[in-house]
């Protein structure tokens, strides 16, 4: 997510963000913590009044979130928070499996040393975060996957992954009960990292697919579907 400083760098990068980008960050954070529940309507005028900005940047921010798949626009009705159903969750993990599987195969062929160290560090951070607030676990989980895709060195693979990040967060919010002790999730990531480090592209790709299938299967357990339909 934008605005998070990396731990090694106390001040964080100074960046001037546009008003729509700031509003988009704010709305995204609200949607992702569940402050705007699924199916709820977002009013451009109301938000503009609350944020004390004009409606233009609010509209632009809402457009961004529509592109990210967090909001949905209905003609003549307005803009609503999405409710991801079973099929959406399956599709998110299917698409991630394809994109990250391809990235993992590339990384396992090259085994770039710097990226390997970074992935190891991110996995340690993920392991350390389990037991803490779930949103922190999600952030570390996603950071690991982002770094994995980036390690492939393909701008386009990274861009494809990026389009799925926000929806993945929404799915991950619902996975909390299944990962409470964290051992499974750490073991799955560790297995992937081992395959990358030992240069086994086919195994790395297969483990990524299994990791995604497992997540999709956990999301398909009936009582977690209260958000959808």
């Amino acid at each position, binding site marked *: 997510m934008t605005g998070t400083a990396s731990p090694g760098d106390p001040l964080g990068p100074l960046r001037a963000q546009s008003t729509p980008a700031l509003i988009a960050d704010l709305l995204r954070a609200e949607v992702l913590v569940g402050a705007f529940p699924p199916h709820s309507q977002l009013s451009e005028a109301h938000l503009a009044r609350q944020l004390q900005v004009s409606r233009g940047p609010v509209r632009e921010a809402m457009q961004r979130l529509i592109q990210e*798949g967090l909001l949905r626009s209905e003609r003549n009705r307005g803009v609503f928070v999405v409710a991801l159903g079973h099929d959406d969750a399956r*599709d*998110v993990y*299917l*698409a991630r499996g*394809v*994109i990250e599987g391809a990235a993992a195969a590339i990384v396992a062929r090259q085994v770039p040393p710097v990226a390997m160290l970074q992935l190891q560090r991110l996995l340690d951070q993920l392991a350390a975060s389990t037991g803490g607030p779930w949103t922190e676990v999600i952030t570390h989980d996603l950071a690991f996957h982002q770094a994995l895709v980036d390690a492939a060195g393909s701008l*386009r693979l990274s*861009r*494809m992954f990026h*389009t*799925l990040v926000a*929806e993945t967060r929404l799915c991950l919010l619902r996975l909390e*009960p*299944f990962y409470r002790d964290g051992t499974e999730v750490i073991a799955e990531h560790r297995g992937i990292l081992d395959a990358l480090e030992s240069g086994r592209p086919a195994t790395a790709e297969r483990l990524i697919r*299994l990791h995604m*299938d*497992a997540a*999709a*299967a*956990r999301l398909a*357990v*009936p*009582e*977690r*579907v*209260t958000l959808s*339909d």
Partner: protein
Amino acid sequence: MPGDVDDAAGRSSASARRLAPLRIESTPSLVADRIRMGIFDGTFPPDSQLNEVELARSLGVSRGPIREAFQRLMQDAAAISGLEQIVSAIGRSVDSEWSELVAIDLEFHRSLVAASGSSRLTRAFEPMYAETRMLLAHMEIHYERRADLVDEHRAIVEAIQAGDRKLIERLVHGHMSDSVTKLVR
């Protein structure tokens, strides 16, 4: 919505439910795989009728998943015949303008991704078709025989029909890396 009613009970039994076996593939997709296998190994010869009730009984599932599997197999068949038509169109255009050939070629790949049924994959690939067109507006992929283009795409469709995942992946990767090495200004 049963989800609402079961919510409180569901939460308290969450830890028990975690141990439930993970069924990674849905029943309809497993059924579809079995029927597909039956078609390839000759259990279901061409033009033979598939009976929903009999299949449900022999596979030990209800009729719903069988019906859904039929739907999927029909969608697959429609997607494959769509791809075959595009291959024929590529064949008819080998002597056309390069840009026209590129457009048809990209249509093949767009249909291929769309046939995955994943709206997110389809969306994620979209910008790359525009980029490929931009790239190929200034460069040509040099083929000794442009008809090779037809054969390469046809081979991909045949591998899909045969359900040979390894071959599909090898052919598609080969097709892409080949295009890169054959790029000429």
